[in-house]
């Protein structure tokens, strides 16, 4: 283990709150405490990735000649709307219904 490796990043309450917000996860206070400790431990153990001298190695990419062949650009029937919407929790007139997006938009009428 080299001495110049960067120190493990600190996972504090603010980081957990920030990441939970980005993740769209409403965590309970207990989950926040648990994940703060666990993420800190996991990232600490992953610090050994910083030991490696990667030189000019690029990031693994998608440049694989065997895969990625595109199919013919041909119009085919798609899923009927009623089937596509059959699993949605709330549907009205062929639209998905969600709570108001903008504050005070409740009376803004149908889309």
């Amino acid at each position: 283990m080299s001495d110049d490796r960067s120190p493990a990043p600190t996972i504090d309450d603010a980081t957990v709150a920030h990441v939970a917000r980005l993740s769209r996860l409403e965590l309970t206070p207990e989950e926040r405490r648990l994940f703060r400790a666990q993420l800190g431990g996991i990232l600490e153990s992953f610090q050994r990735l910083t030991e490696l001298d990667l030189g000019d190695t690029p990031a693994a990419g998608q440049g694989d000649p065997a895969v990625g062949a595109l199919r013919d650009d041909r119009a085919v029937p798609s899923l009927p709307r009623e089937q596509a919407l059959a699993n949605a929790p709330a549907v009205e007139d062929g639209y998905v219904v969600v709570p108001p997006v903008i504050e005070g938009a409740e009376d803004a009428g149908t889309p």
Partner: protein
Amino acid sequence: MTPTPSASPADLPAWELRARYRRGEMRPTEVVRAVLDRIDAVEPRIHAYLYLDADAALRDAARWDAAAGREDAPALAGVPVALKDNLCTRGVPTTAGSRILEGFRPPYDATVVTRLREAGAIVLGKTNCDEFAMGSSTENSAFGPTRNPWDPARVPGGSSGGSAAAVAAGEATLALGSDTGGSIREPGAFCGVVGLKPTYGRVSRYGLIAFASSLDQIGPFARDARDAALLLREIAGRDPADATSADVEVPDYPALLTGRVRGLRLGVVREFLEDGVDAGVANAVRDAIRTLEGLGARRVDVSLPHAPYALPAYYIVAPAEASSNLARYAGVLYGRRTDRADDLIGMYARTRDEGFGAEVKRRIMLGTYALSAGYYDAFYLRAQRVREVIRREMEDALAAVDILVGPVAPTTAFPLGERVEDPLQMYLADVFTVPLNLAGLPGASVPCGVVGGLPVGLQIAGRRFDEATVLNVAHALEQAIGTHAFRPPLAAAEGRRTRA
């Protein structure tokens, strides 16, 4: 090994069922009934299935009864198969082991499901798995764990634990699983069955509920290599619906099982047999290597110095992709929605908190962190560069040898509850399997010994798109040591009871 004529159809391999069917000696309804009886007998102790439709299976089987005795019957006519519950099945509940997808009935079949039906396979139902395939024990299923048929106090491995346990216990003849970091190979090893993760791109992922799209691959579970070859041949090949499926010829895998390994260069990976591996596991693997040498394979010691970095690289890359793939579960298009929401963002956040289990949340958090501003270069990009180092190292190694071997996992099946509170301990079960996913290489788990009453799996890794050699080495080992030792006591007891 030729099965005894008196064996229950539930314990026969697919290739034997197929031979008897073509000779007109066995009807699919008879086979499906035997498997359903086995399910009735052992399922209360195993819990391999999340959904079972016995009536539909018997109906489908009856359709093939009339064709018994026909030479031109499709490859899997009347063979009962189980599907991991992250494979979409039209009109049939598909949960991926998650509460957030409770009640979801996909409007289409995954390509592998379509191909199985075309091949005449009888779909029995959907098998239990870790939620969204995230786990190594099937304990992360929202619907309770599956138990190991060798010892119900132990895990079957994961994430495809239900599929592995079903095949081991005779609750299905064949099964499909998915493998993102070892989710076919590790449960295969823990349950004493053959599990194969094909080359990335070999099998269409269309209709597989995505976890980490650059790593996910669907593959077979079977009780021997010949059955795995039979199943792989049916599901492999280019699919216009999956742009990452490869346009590479699919060989006739069963026909290539010669059992000959003379002159084959067998790369033994030093890093996979170092400290951290249970002595019993290491011994069983060394015995298997000696057996293959005895058959004429040439042992070559290989070093993969970067292999120990695969685990942290994987646990950055996979959660990063998961955090993006799982953004779709927000209570809008399918699945659960919270009933306590005043605004859109609140609905997303609360739906996801209520619907996801702890491991899924942990990985979404980890992945989001690794992709977030300020940490992207240090974590995600660095992990992807390490992945490239590992990929090159493994491809270089496979330029000098024909296959690489080592243990599938450092231990045999561990007790239920032992690791659920400690995510890092759980991740360690994947230490030898994740390098293949990072490199996109094919790998099989084949039973190679029994230690303390539990099976041990040998991992066989091959060159890209060379599943044929991987399967042939597995077949050669089976021919030498037999498969009879790899039947869990529970299935053996049920087999005796049925015949009595």
